[in-house]
């Protein structure tokens, strides 16, 4: 296959098809999760990445297994993009022994160190310093790993964001701060929570280059992430990427979304759906047909169904698991 879509990372047509497939994984996985939650099949809470598939899939695709990510409460997409098995993720949500975290973490804590995933996080902003630490470790050990720190717009108002960016900058660490600006925290519009037009401007305060991109434009995501990764690998320090996107669903399962309008939601769903946009791009480039696209969707739907079957078949942790892993033996 050729290279029909111009991009800075030199991705081939096949690469873009792979990314597109990942985007479907994320969409369908989270749609399934939503259904399961509403049906009471899984408990706790969950935060869906629906509408934000391009940021995770486009950036994660550029990472090697040895590269690290830190993720957030809204982390299913990041984990899938970093190649954590959907089977194990679903098993985790079902609280099974064979889940990513042996049933102890749940949606907000999915981690998969073998795949380079240092974990999702229930504490907003907690990933920043951890990502900096991972990047520091790479630097000290002379490894050419890169860390991507995923975070939300709202989290940039935590002190940890500011402290971590400064540290990463003075030590020129190989870390990419990837802000998914879906324009809201839980309910608060980021426009009312910061007094600057672009979150990427915050990089300047710490001597870090900041860029704002359309996070639903897969090529923009690939290009910006690729440049940031290359820079990091060359020892030229961190980058702050602000990717504008939108979460199509409520913040968590109980959210009635009274803080935003249905018109605004419709606007984003109609004009900025990353899956529709990417499909259109690939079809226009002649890489994909509508039929092939539907086939991908059907395949991935099947994969998600399989994940549910896998999860339901998993055994529950033994009662003794309660006391295991509190300390390293």
């Amino acid at each position, binding site marked *: 296959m050729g290279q029909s879509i111009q991009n800075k990372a030199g991705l081939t047509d096949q690469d873009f098809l792979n990314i597109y497939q990942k985007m479907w994984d994320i969409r369908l996985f989270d749609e399934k999760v939503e259904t399961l939650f509403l049906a009471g099949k899984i408990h706790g809470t969950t935060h869906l990445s629906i509408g934000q598939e391009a940021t995770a899939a486009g950036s994660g695709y550029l990472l090697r297994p040895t590269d690290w990510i830190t993720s957030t409460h809204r982390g299913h997409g990041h984990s899938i993009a970093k190649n954590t098995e959907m089977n194990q993720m679903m098993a985790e949500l079902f609280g099974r022994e064979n889940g990513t975290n042996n049933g102890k973490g749940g949606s907000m804590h999915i981690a998969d160190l073998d795949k380079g995933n240092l974990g999702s996080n229930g504490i907003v902003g907690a990933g920043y310093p951890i990502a900096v630490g991972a990047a520091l470790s790479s630097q000290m050990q002379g490894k050419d790993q890169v860390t991507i720190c995923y975070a939300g717009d709202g989290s940039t108002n*935590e002190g940890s964001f500011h402290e971590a960016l400064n540290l990463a900058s003075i030590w020129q660490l190989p870390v990419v701060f990837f802000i998914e600006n879906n324009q809201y925290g*839980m309910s608060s519009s980021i426009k009312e929570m910061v007094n600057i037009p672009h979150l990427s401007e915050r990089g300047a305060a710490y001597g870090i280059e900041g860029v704002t991109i359309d996070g639903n434009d897969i090529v923009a995501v690939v290009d910006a992430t690729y440049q940031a990764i290359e820079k990091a690998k060359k020892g030229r320090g961190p980058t702050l990427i602000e990717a504008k996107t939108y979460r199509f669903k409520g913040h968590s399962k109980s959210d009635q979304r009274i*803080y935003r309008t249905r018109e605004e939601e419709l606007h984003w769903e109609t004009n900025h759906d990353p899956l529709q946009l990417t499909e259109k791009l690939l079809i226009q480039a002649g890489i994909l047909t509508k039929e092939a696209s539907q086939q991908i969707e059907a395949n991935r739907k099947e994969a998600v169904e399989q994940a549910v079957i896998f999860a339901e078949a998993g055994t529950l942790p033994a009662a003794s698991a309660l006391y295991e892993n509190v300390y390293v033996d």
Partner: protein
Amino acid sequence: MRERTYLEAVNEALDEALAEDESVFLLGEDIGVYGGGFGATKGLIEKYGNKRVRATPISESAIAGAAVGAAMTGMRPIFELQFSDFITIALDQIVNQAAKIHYMYGGKASVPLVMRTAGGSGTGAAAQHSQSLENWTAHIPGLKVVQPSTPYDAKGLLHTAIEDQNPVMFYEHKLCYKMTGDVPAGKYTIPFGVADIKQTGTDVTIVATGIMVHKALKVAEQAQEAGISVEVIDPRTLVPLDIETIITSVKKTGRLLVVHEAVKRSGFGGEVASLVAESDGFYALKAPIKRLGGEAVPMPYQPQLEQNAIPQVSNIYEAVLSLMKQ
């Protein structure tokens, strides 16, 4: 009887305090139209506007610190931490600033703020959203610590907290929010440092806090059927603590069981047990004091493990039976 939920009781107290005192204001994440983490501030921004109901950025340290500064200079801030676990981020302002200022400044400044926050497990929210950390603040001189278990107590104690001249840590329990009970209309206060005997009894004293009060009451019912008379005491405020009521009860029953959801190790139950052991109530004991608390593990996600991590009715009942054997 005016039946209201615990959540409504909290909301009413906030509403009445905002109406009564211009210096009272609320701050916290998503406390506007969203109503805060669990809906306690619903309807208040519509009534009092965004100057007095201030939805903040996600900045717990600044929220707590701004409350300290405002409290020192004439306001009465009430800030919400959506989950009590997030106190970790606000802790410098609470522990090193709010708690100490009045003393450090020789009594020349005061910090009349209230921190409201939701604690406890039982919702499948896992390790970072389920802790019971009230004992942390109970350890810090200068802070008052409140832990209401019923709608009635929640409203009255919150009013008292708001009127108090000191920083007050107000721990609500997520699983209590939907519970209903009698909540009188209008403002009323419940003095701090006065325990409530939720059930009188003569054989065993159970001192329980938060959600454990309700479990202890179930146990009392069960025990009644087995011919055991259980007294259930809810201290309601950990600081100040009404140890007298507890000691008086122990002198009557001769048996003490302390139950809380927080991890047992270094938990508040140890404090209660020690105070009783140090008092003349000690001589009345017919059996060694028993404590039940959370297992010393982070809260697991899986529902059965989550339940096993904290005392259940059956554990409390067994503890009562074992006390009765002695």
